[in-house]
């Protein structure tokens, strides 16, 4: 995004960098220059801040910004960080919904900032951005993801195929491939796990994301460690902690039917036992 493409000249020494605020920018639908024809609007961005080096307390920070119809919440955060307050901290890498870095709570629900268009939100009210719940906040919107990845590792998220190594590729029918297609889409953004009320209060729970990634291998016809994974998840802190609130299914930016995947693992455990 280049809202400030006209600011190329380096500022003279001593003069502050010209800061673009909403006051100096022509508001409303005036189709100006680079943004030709794209609607623009004023938004209020309200972000939950936590700066441990300054204070132990979290607080709310607000910015009024002029944004465009093609902008996402991530663009608004960029605008704040680049033009207004460089201390604002958040994670993002690819910015296109693939890397899974920028999961955050937008207007009370877990979303990827890079996949949430501003124009789809209610702009008459401030857009409220908070870190995802249930994981320790390190700074602003950045949380400690270690517990999340720890439970991911525990379900052995890799192919285990032993004996009779094929000399050609491992054959899998289209139907067998389709069996676990939904759960291959996971990008490990933690939006599901941190939307789960059980996970908020019980950090020991594996969480939806780990179960989804176990599902991806349990139902893979080439994999031989399904029983072991089912054994791992047949635990007090495993699939049976799921209370089917469907928050995870709603939060998943990839549209994975998370609760259904968990239910399928539950049924697989029971089918194996009897």
């Amino acid at each position, binding site marked *: 995004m280049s809202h400030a493409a006209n600011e190329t000249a380096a500022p003279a020494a001593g003069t502050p960098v010209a800061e673009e605020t909403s006051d100096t920018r022509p508001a409303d639908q005036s189709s100006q220059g680079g943004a030709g024809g794209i609607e623009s609007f004023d938004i209020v961005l309200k972000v939950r801040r936590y700066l441990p080096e300054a204070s132990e307390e*979290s607080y709310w920070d607000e910015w009024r910004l002029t944004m465009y119809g093609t902008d996402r919440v991530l663009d608004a955060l960029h605008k704040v960080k680049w033009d207004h307050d460089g201390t604002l901290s958040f994670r993002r890498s690819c910015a296109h919904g693939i890397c899974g870095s920028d999961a955050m709570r937008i207007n009370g*629900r877990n979303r990827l900032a890079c996949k949430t268009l501003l124009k789809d939100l209610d702009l008459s009210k401030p857009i409220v951005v908070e870190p995802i719940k249930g994981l320790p906040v390190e700074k602003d919107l950045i949380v400690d993801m270690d517990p999340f990845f720890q439970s991911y590792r525990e379900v052995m998220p890799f192919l285990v195929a032993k004996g009779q190594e094929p000399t050609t590729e491992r054959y899998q029918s289209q139907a067998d491939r389709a069996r676990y297609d939904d759960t291959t889409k996971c990008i490990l953004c933690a939006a599901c796990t941190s939307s789960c009320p059980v996970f908020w209060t019980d950090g020991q729970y594996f969480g939806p994301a780990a179960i989804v990634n176990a599902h991806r291998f349990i139902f893979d016809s080439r994999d031989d460690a399904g029983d072991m994974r089912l054994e791992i998840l047949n635990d007090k802190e495993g699939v049976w902690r799921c*209370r089917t609130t*469907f928050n995870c299914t709603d939060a998943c930016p990839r549209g994975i039917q998370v609760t259904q995947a968990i239910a399928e693992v539950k049924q697989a455990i029971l089918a194996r036992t009897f």
Partner: protein
Amino acid sequence: MSSATAQAPAKNGRGTLYRGHGGMWSWVGHRVTGVVIFFYLLVHVLDTAMVRVSPEAYDAVMESYKTWYFALGETALVAAVLFHALNGLRIILVDFWKGGTRHHKTLLWVVLALWAVLLIGFSVRHLTLAFGGH
């Protein structure tokens, strides 16, 4: 796995509530009604145990149950039990019926409709008895 419950203190203006949908709120309702029913059971054990003290004490307790405010309380109790029972059946379906996860929203509406019908039926009968005399 290490515990992940420690949150940054949020005293200065609290964080917002997670805006879940029907699934989350039915779960909250299930928890609340579960706790309500549990406390009712405690009281119920106590009042039936009064018969061990003396039949008169038991009768005295039973007499107090026939007042209008206990009738309202009983209606609330039946509301809680009905919701907990119907929603419990829904959760079983979501967990173990193949189409359960796909139709969970419909199932919730069915639960709420059944709950309303049964509760209205019960309330009419129970409250006319309680307020209208015998």
